[in-house]
């Protein structure tokens, strides 16, 4: 019995592999397992090699590790590309019609399991794309799970289709399941140990979590131009617009997107945009506009490999310094970076309150690894208390009848002036891209310019009370202190576990709130650390640079990865050992 299985399925794009991965994760999560799904694919729609990895365990884990227990190949390149990654005695499922693989083709001993996938599909009058369903049945049998858990998932997955489609998919899955039971009855080496049934778990990617968080946060308007890896945010809004009374508009470009969202926010509703680095680059001028006009906006930036078009379907944490410094001129902003889908939900909802409280842009930095991997999050996490706080919005009835209301009044300690919205009686003002006075009229007077710039910058001080200290995981007095931000947390936490097994102690100072930077707490935490190692998915160590800028502390040791693939915890362990 195993307490962790890593299953990979690979084939051409268009083979339905992604849905196979999430169905697998959902089936096991429903009966109490912890699951995670990651994907790898080139930037094309048909052909190429797509790979889905699913990890299933009765115990909680934070990341994928470098093991492969079961490989399901829907085409030959899947085996050619991944045979070197297989564990000893891994199971290899393939259609013998594609190729007669021999044990000698593999560097380590493996169990070859030829399953006539296409023949099984043809026998039941299915289409070639339905081989993925057969492999789900095959896999369930190989890990010793009950077929019924898959049956309920298939029913739900195809519930919008007609009954024959559901029946046919169940029959196909069952044929795969039965084939294994009949032809490989002794193959029990990958049986999973039983899990305790838990509360309901959501299987969702971080973009869907951003969508859910936005809805929780009362979003009413989103303008998002399509771009990998945030397209699931679009689907979430487009699919739910009617039900949730949200307007999702597809703009002609990202420049239009952010200006539409600013228009909607100025008009009085919570608004957001989402993009990746390249799309956000086009929004930078609009970001600066939000800064001077003091219009709240939430920006979800899903990072991917740059510069320019880079490697569009691969992951990176390369935009931290970009979002902190983006925009001409000086104005306050907040930068948040969730570590997983659970935090993506929570931080997005909070981002809307922060944007309104400070009338300024708030970033939610995700990345391709977060945004397209599927995470397993307990239902109760989404049901935590949340209150929509619109900040300083005036009531129409409170506006003075002598029309003396000033939208940008200067006598505010936190730099945040009460907002009216267009259409309110006696609330007239000008939202102005030019430097302006309290009413919004243009000004170039030295004194008025300085007063207004100071008012905006006062928000930085006010925000400080909201800035949480970075989260510390593990023993405070450990020998090694990792620092990381956003999506690097999972692999680091799992690496700490591996180090502990080797008799080494490590802790992690982890940032989800990056700007304004919690400098005092960080200086305190790091100045007493014995050995500090920066772990980031970029080539230059952008968090380390931020820490140095704000605390003067230089982190000498860095474990950096920028090949587009998320960290394996083993790589972090190796990094620790190599730099000894």
């Amino acid at each position: 019995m195993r307490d962790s299985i890593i299953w990979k399925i690979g084939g051409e794009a268009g083979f339905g592999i992604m849905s196979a991965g999430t169905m697998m994760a959902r089936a096991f999560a429903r009966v109490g397992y912890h699951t995670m799904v990651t994907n790898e694919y080139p930037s094309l729609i048909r052909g190429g090699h797509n790979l889905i990895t699913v990890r299933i365990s009765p115990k909680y884990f934070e990341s994928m590790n470098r093991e492969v227990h079961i490989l399901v190949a829907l085409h030959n390149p899947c085996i050619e590309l991944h045979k070197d990654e297989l564990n000893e005695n891994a199971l290899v499922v393939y259609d013998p019609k594609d190729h007669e693989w021999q044990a000698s083709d593999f560097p380590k001993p493996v169990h070859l399991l030829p399953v006539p996938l296409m023949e099984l599909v043809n026998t039941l009058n299915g289409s070639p794309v339905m081989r993925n369903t057969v492999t789900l049945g095959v896999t369930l049998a190989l890990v010793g799970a009950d077929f019924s858990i898959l049956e309920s998932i298939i029913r739900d997955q195809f519930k919008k289709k007609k009954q024959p489609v559901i029946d046919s998919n169940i029959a196909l899955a069952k044929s795969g399941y039965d084939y294994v039971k009949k032809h490989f009855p002794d193959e029990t080496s990958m049986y999973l140990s039983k899990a305790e049934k838990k509360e309901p778990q959501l299987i969702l990617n971080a973009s869907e979590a951003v969508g859910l968080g936005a809805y929780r946060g009362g979003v009413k308007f989103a303008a998002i131009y399509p771009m990998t890896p945030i397209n699931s945010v679009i689907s979430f809004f487009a699919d739910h617009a009617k039900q949730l009374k949200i307007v999702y508009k597809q703009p002609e470009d990202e420049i239009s997107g952010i200006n539409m969202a600013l228009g909607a926010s100025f008009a009085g509703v919570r608004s957001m945009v989402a993009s990746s680095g390249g799309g956000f680059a086009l929004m930078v001028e609009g970001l600066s506009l939000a800064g001077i006009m003091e219009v709240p906006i939430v920006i979800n930036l899903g990072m991917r490999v740059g510069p320019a078009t880079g490697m569009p379907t691969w992951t990176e944490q390369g935009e931290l310094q970009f979002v902190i410094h983006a925009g001409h001129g000086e104005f306050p902003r907040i930068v948040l970076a969730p570590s997983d889908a659970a935090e993506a939900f929570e931080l997005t909802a909070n981002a809307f309150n922060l944007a309104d409280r400070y009338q300024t842009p708030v970033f939610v930095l995700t990345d391709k690894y977060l945004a397209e991997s599927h995470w397993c999050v307990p239902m109760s996490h989404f049901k935590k208390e949340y209150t929509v706080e619109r900040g300083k919005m005036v009531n129409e009835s409170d506006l003075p009848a002598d029309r003396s209301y000033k939208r940008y009044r200067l006598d505010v300690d936190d730099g945040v002036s009460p907002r009216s919205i267009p259409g309110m009686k006696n609330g007239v003002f000008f939202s102005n891209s030019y430097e302006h006075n309290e009413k919004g009229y243009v000004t170039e007077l030295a004194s008025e310019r300085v007063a207004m710039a100071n008012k905006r910058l006062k928000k930085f001080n006010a925000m400080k009370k909201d800035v949480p200290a970075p989260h510390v995981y593990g023993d405070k007095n450990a020998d090694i202190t990792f620092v990381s931000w956003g999506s690097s947390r999972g692999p680091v936490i799992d690496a700490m576990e591996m180090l502990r097994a080797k008799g080494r102690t490590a802790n992690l100072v982890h940032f989800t709130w990056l700007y304004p930077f919690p400098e005092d707490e960080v200086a305190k935490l790091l100045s007493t650390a014995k050995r500090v190692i920066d772990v980031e998915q970029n080539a230059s160590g952008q968090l380390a640079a931020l820490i140095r800028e704000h605390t003067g502390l230089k982190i000498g040791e860095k474990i950096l990865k920028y090949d587009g693939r998320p960290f394996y915890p083993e790589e972090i362990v190796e990094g620790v050992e190599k730099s000894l």
Partner: protein
Amino acid sequence: MTLNSSVFAANHLPTWCPGCGDYGIWTALKEALVKQGIGSDDGLVVYGVGCHGNMYNWMNIYGFAGLHGRTLPVAQGVKLANHKLPVVVVSGDGDCLGEGGNHFLHAAKRNPDITVILHDNQVYGLTTGQASPTAKIGFVTKSTPDGAVDAPINPLLLAIAAGATYVARGFAGDTPGLIKLMSDAVEHKGFAVVDVLQPCVTFNKVNTYQWYRQRVYRLEDEKYVPDNKMKAIERAMEWGDRIPIGLFYKEIRPTSEDHEPALTGDPLIRVPVASEHFDSVLQEFV
């Protein structure tokens, strides 16, 4: 109290050059708003960047003076958040057709209920006289010392082709005509474009008031009916000894806001934040 254009008076005096076509447009806009019953608190004007955009400093009505070229996305965002709010865009030929050309095409295609007043003087006045996208071939400016060589953009042709549902041209020297066109444009439910031929007394010595007065004629005087795209295109291409002004094309088509299922009732700004569907949406992911 009856509404009159003095409600728009602000504490600033215009800084446009004496004789600028902007004065005529400004006057007409105020009168058109009054005609439509829109006072200081009842509507929004979104301004671009250029001489035209400076209007907000002497125009007392909710205003959004945004980035160069980005008026239309802002106006559409506002309109989707509050589709009951009248929204007028004050833009220029450089703002709307140069920097914001793509937005113009897509706004026309979507047909939001917005009126665009396009200040068309062939030059960038605020940057002291470079050629704008509507500059005619041969026009000498600071950026085209040997005369403009690129074919000019025709705002009317572009608007008609892209799907605008109210397409008109006025002349800054004809305030009564402009008031009528602007008022009808604001009343029109859909994307209304009013291209305004506007002399720039400082940087355009060719297309003067005199020059226009000798050439413009009213479409309505020729019993022109603005209900046919092909005929509208034909008139829009007429430029020379005779230049038509008036309404070229009009059609009724569902607006961008009409298509939004969330906007069938109250505007979004009045819809309270609700989480009644939260549990059922969460259930989709289990």
